[in-house]
């Protein structure tokens, strides 16, 4: 019982394809948080409303990078839009991505127009850049502000289905492959969306707390508490769905369970059972649960929430790994498994993956230099 087809010895989709859904998940999740404020008027989230929108934008900018690193012929990448084969789920990528990027850029423009105008009135290169972004129109009054707000709200609403589409389609891409028993489930689409929301909220909490600490700001406690509640709720749904998927196959004891059960026991025991569920789901579940149900001192609560958010960021990354890599470890001969360990310095290795993941944070820092992402931040007393 250890035979793989000879072309399966090398895994085709590497750590880059693990990173891609991870990044689009952060985009979708961060965007949902910004929309909770802009569309659903959750005013307690005002402190991170701009930050979440900008985070979604910078992560979206870098989402195609791991794909380009992965493609055998990246110079032909635009074939996906020039000669799309609409029978393929993947053909939607170019169009969904472009539409979403457009909506996001426009929303940022309308949400942050006042700040751009303020900055454009100064002197220097950044001011000139802001004037360019504003297309030279620095006029602002109560009427324009109201119009901007209205349009931004509309765009935020349009963006929600687009965000779900962008990320859900990645889940569909895996879930619709009938050749792979580990991927082939209609639940994949839903699991990807909920885990995206989890990772998006988690990255905002993680980053907001780090930035506040570095700058000596006072954390907006109602905002943190609200995000904690959402994070707890969405993580329960996401983990429940993930468990439901595997438990239903296990309970049915179908033919495919013979090989999938062995995949879990032999290949994914540590990354899937121990790490994804027992460590990085259970501990955050308890930490967030305690903070949602009981009122602890702010300092202790924040430490627990930050740890939980950071762990959930790892949990979602592990989930992506276990789906993308795990599915490729099973041979389509159903008789054995292959192995995959990414190299560090190769084209699709860990160093490149780390660089791609770090870049959005750098761009976000630059973004904040042009337009403040936390205009409401107050120093700690």
């Amino acid at each position, binding site marked *: 019982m250890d035979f793989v087809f000879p072309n399966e010895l090398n895994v*085709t989709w590497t750590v880059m394809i693990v990173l891609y859904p991870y990044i689009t998940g952060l985009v979708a999740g961060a965007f949902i948080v910004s929309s909770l404020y802009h569309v659903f008027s959750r005013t307690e989230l005002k402190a991170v409303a701009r930050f979440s929108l900008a985070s979604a934008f910078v992560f979206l900018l870098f989402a195609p990078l791991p794909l380009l690193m992965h493609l055998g012929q990246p110079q032909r990448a635009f074939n996906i839009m020039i000669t799309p084969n609409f029978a393929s789920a993947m053909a939607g990528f170019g169009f969904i991505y472009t539409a979403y990027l457009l909506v996001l850029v426009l929303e940022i423009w309308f949400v942050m127009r006042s700040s751009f105008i303020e900055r454009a009135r100064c002197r220097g290169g950044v001011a000139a850049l802001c004037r360019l972004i504003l297309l030279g129109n620095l006029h602002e009054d109560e009427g324009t502000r109201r119009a901007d707000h209205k349009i931004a709200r509309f765009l935020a609403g349009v963006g929600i289905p687009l965000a779900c589409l962008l990320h859900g389609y990645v889940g569909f891409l895996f879930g619709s492959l009938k050749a792979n028993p580990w991927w082939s489930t209609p639940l994949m689409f839903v699991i990807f969306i909920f885990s995206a929301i989890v990772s998006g909220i988690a990255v905002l909490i993680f980053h907001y707390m780090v930035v506040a600490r570095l700058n000596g700001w006072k954390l907006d406690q109602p905002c943190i508490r609200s995000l904690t509640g959402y994070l707890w709720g969405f993580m329960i749904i996401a983990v429940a769905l993930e468990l439901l998927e595997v438990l239903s196959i296990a309970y049915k004891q179908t033919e495919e369970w013979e090989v999938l059960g062995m995949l879990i026991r032999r290949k994914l025991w540590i990354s899937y059972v121990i790490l994804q569920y027992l460590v990085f789901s259970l501990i955050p579940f308890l930490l967030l649960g305690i903070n949602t149900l009981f009122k602890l001192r702010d300092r202790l609560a924040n430490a627990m929430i930050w740890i939980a958010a950071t762990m959930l960021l790892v949990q979602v990354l592990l989930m992506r790994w276990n789906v993308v890599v795990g599915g490729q470890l099973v041979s389509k001969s159903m008789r054995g498994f292959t192995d995959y360990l990414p190299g560090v310095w190769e084209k699709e290795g860990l160093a490149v993956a780390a660089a791609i993941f770090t870049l959005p944070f750098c761009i976000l820092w630059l973004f904040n230099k042009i337009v403040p992402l936390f205009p409401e931040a107050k120093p700690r007393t």
Partner: protein
Amino acid sequence: MKTRNRKSDRPDESRRHLLKLLAAGSGLLVFPLGSLPTRASAADGTGERPPYWAYAVDTTRCMGCCACMRACRDENGVPKGVFRTWVERYRIDLDDEVHVDVAMHDDFVFAPAPGDVARAFFVPKLCNHCEKSVCNQVCPVGAAYRTADGVVLVDAEHCIGCGYCVQACPYGSRFINPESHVADKCTFCYHRLARGLAPACVLTCPREARLFGDLNDPQSKLSVLLRQRPYRLLKPELGTHPKCYYLGLDREVV
């Protein structure tokens, strides 16, 4: 035998058809009628249907010499470590345990089998050139296509090398070519078919375990064989309608 679906699923086929019509129209102005006989017109002239290629493997005849693997590599320049075709060796021991392996080293020679063997047989594998091929469906740029004569091919000049077709193929027949960095697979030696020659693996098999023929010709050796002997398809439950027919296939094989 029913007439096979001969329509190519290539996305730009209709545009090509239009261009061909235009070219043919302009050609009439220059050449006298009938001065350029084509394969299609010759076929039409004799009333024969154009070919619809398919493949059969007689597993009872394969002896595991792997001459087909060597021929394929030489004919198509397949790089090391990837395979357009391969031969699986099945060994069932006295405890009914099934052991499968493939001779993957450069010389394509199976290592001597350890232990007692109750039963053993060989199964050559290759692209099944499915009628409803998933690889064609999932290709995002339309680089994977099926020709009108039933062969599934990859346009290496158009493929972006995303690997989605590799994931979608249930038979492990596709791979990313480590030299060209695009999807690659068995082509039924399409360059040979165009010259009226059989695929290299079929030609080289000393036991006639590999058979190739035209399903649209009821008198072809393949058509006759498929009428006379029971056969099995690989993973028929996936609805891909493979066009590689296995004669005498053991139930252990997937």
